[in-house]
């Protein structure tokens, strides 16, 4: 039996998130429980990377955990607030990329190659940022390079690989070995997961490894790449997760978005929803109480949207391969 990767949220973050780490945070399935635990433990000087990092980057910045952001989508629908001010003053360093760029940079990291070309960014003002000076610039960082392809003369933009020190992600289910099943549109999660040096995954359900292995095409990352698995139902709340729950727009509007608009708002949010809760169950009970059980029930996914014809992974046990005779042909 391979050793279990199962552990508590607290232990996973304590062991695998170190001050100064570059953290990849998924965004289609937002790892809110992990983000809150990082804030709770007071990790410092993290860099947040990911195609779109609106929620985790903002919470980590306001929680005093974040020194740097590289992303294609930082602010999203949030009103300009304290994080923009921190960026303007250079308290948070940042590089603006695009979603494709970050996805490809993570892919390069996953593939173990130093850079990757794209045909994006040509003709844009991003190409002028290489030599721009501004308070939030990452000192000495080479953000891209433009070159002509030696093979066909096409102009391309080279982007540096990203290898996150640690990946935080939430998914549907995993086994104790860390094999993770994930379904629904993925954003850049696959490449973040494989580019990371340490990987923490929270899941709705821990299942026997036979469940995972009976449908291995659905595995997004294999256990040998995963450091920790945490059983954490509603670990993406108030974000959504296919097959389980949708975005909790009411909670976002009433509670989280206003909390991210000011330092004081976040301090109150942190006291009530991060430092003031001792478990995810307590957090969820408070969510139900705050928005009401009926409104909470409205975000739950309807059951029964399962494949009409489950795939068959069957193979032939007999084959018809003739017994090999004679010498090796070469």
């Amino acid at each position, binding site marked *: 039996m391979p050793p279990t990767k199962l552990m508590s949220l607290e232990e996973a973050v304590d062991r695998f998130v170190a001050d100064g780490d570059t953290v990849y945070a998924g965004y289609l399935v937002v790892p809110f429980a992990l983000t809150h635990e990082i804030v709770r433990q007071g990790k410092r000087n993290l860099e947040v990377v990911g195609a779109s990092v609106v929620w985790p980057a903002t919470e980590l910045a306001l929680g005093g955990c974040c020194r740097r952001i590289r992303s294609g989508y*930082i602010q999203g629908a949030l009103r300009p607030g304290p994080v923009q001010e921190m960026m303007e003053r250079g308290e948070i360093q940042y590089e*603006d990329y*695009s979603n494709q760029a970050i*996805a490809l940079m993570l892919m390069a990291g996953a593939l173990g190659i130093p850079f990757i070309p794209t045909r*994006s960014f*040509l*003709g844009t003002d991003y190409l002028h*940022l290489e030599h721009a000076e501004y308070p939030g610039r990452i000192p000495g960082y080479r953000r891209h390079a433009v070159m002509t392809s030696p093979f066909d003369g096409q102009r391309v933009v080279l982007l540096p690989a990203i290898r996150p020190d640690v990946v935080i992600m939430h998914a549907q289910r995993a086994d104790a070995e860390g094999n993770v099943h994930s379904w*629904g549109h993925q954003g850049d999660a696959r490449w973040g997961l494989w580019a990371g040096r340490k990987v923490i995954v929270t899941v709705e359900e821990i299942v026997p490894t036979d469940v995972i292995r009976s449908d291995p095409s659905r595995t997004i990352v294999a256990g040998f790449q995963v450091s920790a698995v945490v059983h954490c139902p509603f670990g993406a709340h108030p974000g959504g997760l296919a097959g389980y729950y949708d975005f909790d727009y009411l909670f976002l509007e009433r509670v989280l978005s206003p909390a991210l608009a000011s330092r004081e708002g976040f301090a109150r949010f942190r006291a009530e929803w991060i430092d003031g809760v001792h478990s995810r169950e307590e957090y969820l009970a408070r969510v139900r109480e705050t928005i009401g059980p009926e409104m909470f029930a409205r975000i739950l996914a309807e059951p029964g949207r399962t494949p009409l014809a489950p795939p068959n992974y069957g193979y032939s046990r007999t084959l018809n391969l003739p017994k090999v005779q004679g010498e090796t042909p070469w």
Partner: protein
Amino acid sequence: MVNQYAEDYTLAELMCIEAARLLPREGVAFLGLGLPVLSGTLARCLYAPEIQLCTEVGAFDWRPDPPTVPRAPIGIHDLLLNDGAAMVSDMVDALGTVLMGGHVAFAFLTGAQIDKYGNVNTLVLGEYGRPQRRLAGTGGNTEISCLAPQVFVLMPQEPRRWTERVDFITSPGYIDGPGARRRAGLAPQGPNCVISTMGVYRYDTPDGGETGSCELVLEAVFPHIDAETIRALVPWDLKVAEPLREVAPPTPTELAMLRRLDPFQYYLTPGRY
């Protein structure tokens, strides 16, 4: 006699409806975050059942069933995009394989600012490093504008959004005129189109950006709006087509479907888009 057209509608509703009428009727359509999701879903439901709707996060050929679809997706992350899609994958497939690999027929986008060459800004108002205001961010808008062979843009006719030169080109149109896309290393683009809350614009670019002025040309106006009104809201000497087409008001069918697709008024609450 039943009136052919609805009378009680907003200009933003007509913007979404007119765009849905103008979108191509076939091919892979890339929908960007915001109003294009609503308008593109409307097009798929009413006029273009053959287009394959895709988003940058990984849903391909999403098929809303017009009689039963509960809403247009809320954003491009809506989990309903997984239900009935032909393929669900990820961003490298969407913005890499499908977009950069050359499978997209047209894109449908929005942004904060547009200029006379159709360049769009999604990132920052004012100077980049010392901004008046940072905006949402570009997401996939940049590569979609670089790489899609045709781009349709929704842009409310608000003076703050229409500039002679956007503060920051996140998403190139024709950049600074004829030949600029080729010089930058980009493929030609067109026919492109901008739909505002008052009119429809094409470009003076007969061949994707090599010749012509590559400027926006006002091609049609909404009912009860004239070209001079729009010219007064645009800070450059806007070209106007002759003859100028008048956009038909919404039909009751169009308006009913649009409102059904936006049951929370998530998209069409005034001041929100």
